[in-house]
């Protein structure tokens, strides 16, 4: 059954429409890909889901609960975790402290700090930051910051995880690693929504993919369908990639 459902979701900034009448439905337990050219409204859609922007028109439901008009922290407490495209870690706090905030104030609002510390350390080990837990944010690499973003979202132990371009700017090896992590997370039963530009990754891990273009939904379906969808190819993927992808999918 669906965990997150959007009906004719629309957002206007003054004159221009960033997202218009997008319908979507995310099935519990799946990895749902969201792709589209820059400025196609992907991040805006995320901001609408977790309440950073007020929604102009339409409705978003999370497990039956209507999200319209809720403040970000309320939505977080319902069980939606999120990472930021431009990393928004708390400079001046250590890696561990950053993650700790998530577990103290996230979905389960851990009261006991030492207990929180423990699980934070587990999560940090899981995303591979265990060794750097005492580093200041300024002292760690982009890749690590992305991992931290992920960790911060995970310790909030969400039912739904929104990942905004966690792979942007990483080298292939790091990407492989992150894909692994995301799949493991998903296996633990956490539904995941990924925004990605790295086609290979998003095609590889998502069960279903939605394509946005100029704020409209131009396609929704399995990676295979998307790769073959003419409009998508025209407006976004481009022939060359599509061909390679088809052959890639044929081989299975």
């Amino acid at each position, binding site marked *: 059954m669906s965990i997150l459902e959007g009906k004719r979701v629309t957002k206007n900034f003054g004159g221009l429409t960033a997202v218009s009448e997008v319908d979507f439905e995310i099935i519990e337990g799946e990895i749902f890909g969201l792709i589209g050219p820059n400025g196609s409204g992907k991040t805006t859609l995320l901001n609408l889901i*977790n309440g*950073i922007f007020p929604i102009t028109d339409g409705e978003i439901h999370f497990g039956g609960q209507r999200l319209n008009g809720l*403040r*970000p*922290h*309320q939505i*977080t*407490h319902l069980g939606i975790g*999120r990472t*930021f495209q431009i990393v*928004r*870690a*708390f*400079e*001046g*706090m250590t890696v561990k*402290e950053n993650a*700790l*905030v*998530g577990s*103290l*104030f*996230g*979905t389960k*609002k851990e*009261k006991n*700090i030492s207990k929180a510390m423990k699980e934070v350390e587990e999560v940090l080990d899981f995303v591979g930051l265990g060794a750097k837990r005492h580093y200041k944010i300024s002292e760690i690499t982009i890749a690590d910051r992305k991992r931290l973003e992920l960790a*911060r979202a995970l310790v*909030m132990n969400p039912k739904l995880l929104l990942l905004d371009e966690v792979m942007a700017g990483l080298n292939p090896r790091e990407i492989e690693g992150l894909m692994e992590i995301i799949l493991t997370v998903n296996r633990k039963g956490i539904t995941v929504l990924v925004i990605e530009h790295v086609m290979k990754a998003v095609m590889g891990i998502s069960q279903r993919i939605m394509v946005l273009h100029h704020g409209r939904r131009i396609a929704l379906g399995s990676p295979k369908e998307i790769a073959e969808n003419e409009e998508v190819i025209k407006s976004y993927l481009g022939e060359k990639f599509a061909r390679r992808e088809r052959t890639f999918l044929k081989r299975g």
Partner: protein
Amino acid sequence: MVNLGRKGWLLIGGGLCIFLFLAPFVLRGYWIRLLTNMFMFAVLAESVNIIAGYCGYLALGNMFFFGLGAYTVAVLMTKFSFSFFSALLIAGLGASLFSVIVGLPVLRLKGQYFLMGTVGLLELLREITTNISLTGGGQGITLPIFPGGAAAANHFFYHFMFGLMLISIACTFYISKSRLGYAFRAIKFDEDAASVMGINPTPYKTAAWAISAFFTSLAGAGYAYWMSYIDPGEVYQIMPSVKMYLMMVLGGAGTVLGPIAGAFFIEFISELVWGKFLELHLLILGLVLVFVVIFTPKGFIDLFQRGLTPSKLLSGIKANRI
């Protein structure tokens, strides 16, 4: 510097406290007064540290809580013949309540606008106090003299401010270790990210300001009784606010003991300055401000950490210059 364990530090700290507690019994009046003054500023710096250093909201006008406390006590003691301590309690709680009330609208402002808002509040409260006959208006108000001679008074106010300082330190220490502290700092560094991570900023901001208000107001209350005469122009000043910020920055914003150390340091400096150069102290205080922010924008604790070599000093500049 040798690194004693936690116990060692506790020992030193405790020793220092006992020493300071007994000090007034050996020191002469001026020194008692000087230290009392330092404790007072330490309290003020610490309470600014809570709202600005931890929570990142720069309440430059924070001194209006000081005036509020001072006048609450003054009016209650003279016009309604309250005892000092009951008046004190009311002053503290009153200020916190007030901070919550004005906080709801004012804490919505960010950065410069919050800063300027608090300055506006300072001015407004001064003008209002000047215009109410209950507070003695512009003529100021005279409090009852502390009964029981010079020594008794000196010791009373010394220990009052000293105790207040210890409490404020303890409170800040608790905050820094508790969920509150994490929430404050998260809000300071990135309020949106904080709210996405499940922190509802409003109550935390308000709490931070209320605590800050509480201590500032108590300090003001003590001050009023200590000076035994106050007028609006004197207790609602912006100058001490700025001094508080200097102390906080110098000692290290968002650390427990930094502001305290900063307060002591600055008070000693200005004390030395008056003695020597009569007509230059503004200039010197001004230059101290300028040099501090240029060379040690993160406070001298940070400087100690990085080491005191000239190159390190210059790196302090490099961080912020354009």
